[in-house]
Structure formats: C-alpha cells, structure tokens
C-alpha cells in the first residue's frame, strides 16, 4: 500500500469523495456498486470522477481495497477513517 499522503488535495472531487465515504459506511463495496450508491446520493457521477475520488481517498489512507481471490477489489473504510472521522467529516464538508 502506498504511503499515506495527507497533502493530497481533494479539489473538485471533494463532494464525490464525501459521498463515497457515506456509501461505504454500511460495509465494503466494489466500484460498480459504489458508483450506483454515489449516483443515488449525488446525482450523475461518471466513473472518471469516481476513480479520481477513490484514488485520493486511498492515497490519504481513508479507504482501502479488499482483494479476495481474482475478483475485483471491494473498498472499505480504513482504520484511519474510523479514528479520525470527525476531523475528516469537518474537512470534507468545508
């Protein structure tokens, strides 16, 4: 896993990233299901924006991929997210 990089900015992906975190709260999701959930919460979001947000969340150590066998990875909230969630919720909301 890459080193966590807290300097990575969310920029225009901030809102999508926030909805990804909300979508992952009940449990791990693969990218296609995550896209469905984010679209349900946030309207029309494309896969390019989704993966842009996923890359940022992963780089900041807030989500992590979960690979089981040959299947596509599912993503889950990381321990770091559970530890620092209040700070990040506030930061993402700004």
């Amino acid at each position, binding site marked *: *896993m*890459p*080193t966590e*990089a807290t*300097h*990575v900015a969310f920029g225009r*992906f901030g809102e999508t990233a926030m909805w990804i975190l909300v979508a992952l709260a009940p449990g791990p999701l*693969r*990218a*296609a299901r995550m*896209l*469905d959930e984010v679209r349900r919460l946030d309207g*029309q979001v*494309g*896969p*390019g*924006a*989704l*993966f*842009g947000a*996923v*890359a*940022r969340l*992963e*780089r900041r150590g807030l989500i*992590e*991929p*979960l*690979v*089981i066998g040959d299947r*596509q*990875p599912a993503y889950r909230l990381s321990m770091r997210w559970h530890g620092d969630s209040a700070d990040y919720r506030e930061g993402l909301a700004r």
Partner: protein
Amino acid sequence: MSRLLRLYPAAWRERYEAEFIGTLQERPVGPTGSVDIVNGAIDAHLHPELIGGAPHVWTHRLPGLMATAAGLIWSWYYLRIVLAAPEEWGYGVLLAMLLMIFAVLGDYMASYARRIGLAVSALISAAVLAGVQPLSVIGDGMLNFALGAAAALLLSGGMLTLAALRAGIGAGVRWVLIAGGLLVPVTVAISVMGGFGPTDPGGAPAMVVAILPYGIAWTIVGLRMTLRGSMTIHDAPTTAPTSKVAAA
C-alpha cells in the same frame, strides 16, 4: 469506451485499469461518460502523486507550456501568411523559435545550468531585438540555400526530437512526428510544389504544406509535455507501487 483508458498514465492504469474496465462493463456510459473519463485522465496526469509519483511543481510544466505556445504561434503565423497578405519572415516565427529554444533549454538545464540557459536566451533575445534575422545569413546562391535548408532541417528536427524525448514520447510516435511534422512535408513542398517564398507562384500553399505541420507537431509535443510535467535530471524517479491489500 475502454480505449479511452489509454489516455491515463501507465502507473495509474497499472493500479486501476482492470477494475475501471470491469466497472464500465457493468455500468456502460454514454457520450457524457466519455468526457468524464477524459477529464479523469487529465486529472491523473496532473496529479501523479495519487499513484505514488512525485507531485509536479508548476515549473515542470513551464517548458511544456512554452512548447505548446511555440507550436500554436508557429501554426497561426504561417496560416495567417497564406490566408492574409503574404509577408516577410517576421517576429512571429522568431518568437516561436525562441519559445522552442526556451522549452528545450528550460527542460534540460533548469536545474543543471540555469545560468547558461538564461545567458543563451538573453543573447538570442538581444539578437532579435537588434533586428538580426537568423535566415538572413543565407545567401542567394543555390549552394547556400541548400546548406541553409539542411542546417535548418537538422536544427528543427533536433529540437523537436529533444522536446519529444523529454515529453516521454516513444520512439515510434517520435519518428512519426519528425517525419510527419518536418521531413515529408518539406520534401513534398520542395520536390512537387516548388518554392517556399509566399510571393512565389504556388509559394503560399507550399509554405502551408511544408511548414505548418512543424507547428502542429510542436503543439502535440508541448501538450504532452505539459500534461506529463517535464522532469529535470535532478528529480527523483517516480515510483508506481501497486497497492492491493490482500484480505486477511
């Protein structure tokens, strides 16, 4: 649609391409989805730090921007010559040439010998301001013209090659750019259409055929260089770690 994923950087594709393709197969997208994917590719180029690369600083994009500007000015200038009234070689071309030199020098020497780059640039700028036109050294004789043309081809091709190398363009595409942007057009213009001068009979179309592709080639190289961010030789190599976490 998945062909658009080739626009993403290699390190990014290594990490996310498989699941991106899987997502596209499960959730196909329309034309707006294509725009979204292209936007994502641009973002991935602008932020290599997302997949473990070194973040770009704005100065790394300067040579690319200069190369792009050079290509656009060059193309615009020659197009204008043909579409509007023919003119002499003017400052538009010299400005484009200056930017090309800055782009290559800035890329290679920004860290190593910034002062050398500045000195060379200052000399060229002074020459331009003094009204010295490099092509005026070419005489009227056929031999002088041939020598001058060969030197100009060598210099132009060399500069484009250097810029393409630093833009990370592979050998195949690089040769296509050199051939399509310079060698073939100039050869065609000389052998089929005749002269280069905009006032010569058939000269204006010959100029477009011969010289415009060079500007287009520089624009392509410049855009690629800008997106990639030109790394100086002192920069640490980027790493592209795979980041899959095996489930416990």
